[in-house]
């Protein structure tokens, strides 16, 4: 039987962070990142021999247009035992997300027409600044980090993207854009800052893909 959980306390908030990472990965783009505004309702249940399942009613907010919110229901299943299997996430977004086609195409064409590959670091910078030109690069990392967060979350972790340390565009002969990111993830429970490398592909019609990712040793980012 499902047990009601306090929506703004752990473990509901951990499951919610994981769900939002996954949802952002599936629905995000350089024109749209999705963040967690609130957990309106949460319940959990143990499923014998399988794992622990959470049912969540979430409010998501558009990053950076925080006034734009959307409701969403999600189910998160943490698998018993084998910690190498990512949790299962299913979700339904109520209503429509803002259309980002125009912004996505502008960004796509801008990068495609660069003579030299884009390189940048420290996004946001120490003071929280993100220049307008770098905002799509920032959001793309937010979306892609959702994949890493999803793949590596357990009931004892809560990940957030802390910063992009470095990003480098990789030139491709096909229609995709490719970026090699070094990001920092903040893991809330241990309070560790974890450097993580990820290779990200994107195309306006084909969405975001993380084709390669690997956790880095701690000193890699210092």
């Amino acid at each position: 039987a499902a047990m009601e959980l306090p929506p703004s306390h752990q473990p509901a908030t951990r499951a919610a962070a994981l769900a939002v990472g996954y949802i952002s990965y599936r629905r995000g783009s350089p024109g749209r990142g999705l963040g967690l505004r609130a957990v309106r309702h949460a319940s959990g249940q143990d499923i014998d021999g399988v794992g622990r399942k959470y049912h969540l009613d979430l409010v998501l907010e558009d990053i950076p247009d925080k006034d734009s919110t959307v409701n969403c229901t999600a189910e998160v299943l943490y698998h018993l035992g084998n910690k190498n299997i990512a949790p299962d996430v299913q979700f339904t977004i109520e209503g429509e997300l803002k259309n980002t086609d125009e912004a996505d195409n502008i960004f796509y064409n801008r990068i495609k027409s660069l003579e030299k590959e884009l390189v940048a670091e420290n996004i946001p910078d120490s003071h929280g600044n993100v220049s307008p030109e770098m905002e799509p690069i920032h959001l793309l990392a937010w979306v892609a980090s959702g994949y890493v967060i999803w793949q590596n979350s357990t009931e004892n972790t809560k990940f957030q993207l802390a910063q992009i340390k470095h990003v480098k565009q990789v030139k491709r002969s096909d229609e995709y854009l490719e970026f090699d990111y070094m990001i920092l993830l903040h893991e809330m429970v241990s309070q560790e800052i974890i450097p993580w490398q990820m290779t990200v592909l994107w195309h306006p019609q084909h969405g975001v893909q993380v084709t390669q990712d690997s956790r880095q040793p701690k000193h890699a980012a210092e």
Partner: protein
Amino acid sequence: VVLDQEKQDMAYSQQRERSSNSFNYGTYHSLDSIYAELDHLAFEYSNIVSKLQIGQSYEKRPLYVLKFSTGGRHRPAIWIDAGIHSREWVTQASAIWMAKKIASDYGKDPSITSLLNKMDVFLLPVTNPDGYVFTHTTNRMWRKTRSKNQGSRCVGVDPNRNWDAGFGGPGASSNPCSDSYRGPHANSEVEVKSVVDFIKNHGNIRAFLTLHSYSQLLMYPYGYKCTEPADQAELDALGRAAARSIQSLYGTTFTVGSICNTIYQASGGSIDWSYDYGIKYSFAFELRDTGNYGFLLPANQIIPTAEETWLGLKKILEHVRDNPY
């Protein structure tokens, strides 16, 4: 140790002659710049503000506290600290804004005026100055102190796992390379010991409030165990009232609860120590945001964060003023 007021005034005036004072509260500052502003506030509001040094950091930087007092002898007092974790920049920035707010509101705001007529306030804006400097020079994400760990190449202790409250229990690491390393023993960190000694020597601290970021939480004990404190009902009700005050300004929602129930079990935390020491009104704030920017909160959110947080703190201070124990 109270710095010689005259020397302090001279140093400050010399500095004023060199540059026009217009401290921008809406941006992040270096340690030197914050320390200069502490001197300015003690000078400009010398009738109620004085600067004390309560110790030195590991790397021998002064630990400065602002004392807000309208006189009396050994009045009951409030303790507020910020920046124990150095990467949580909005907390040091909010603390200096609040210092200015308290000083300039005395005599104008009835609530603060009546509070300071009865009680003193001690504010430590930069609890971990070594870490704060390190976040400027080397690693923006540094959290701990900068003390050397014997037998390890890793530096620093998590100062909020180093207090004598369930020390060594779950929720703190024994690995010096960990960001939640508890240290070799409780109060091993001079930054922590200096606060403990100050509070014990003062003997009449009635509230202990500490600022962290991020997550938008307002928490009371315990962290080291998941059982309720004896004053759970009162602390929870007061926390909720404070969270409502915070929300009233910009709609920012804070979650209220004990540390263990809200985020995680964590031993050696400051408000667990202060509560078990007898300071009933012990609260830990986690300020903006909820993770979109995290530690890298844009500077244009400093003042809104400070303003809303201040309303929550004020609600607690008013309750402490009106409920002596």
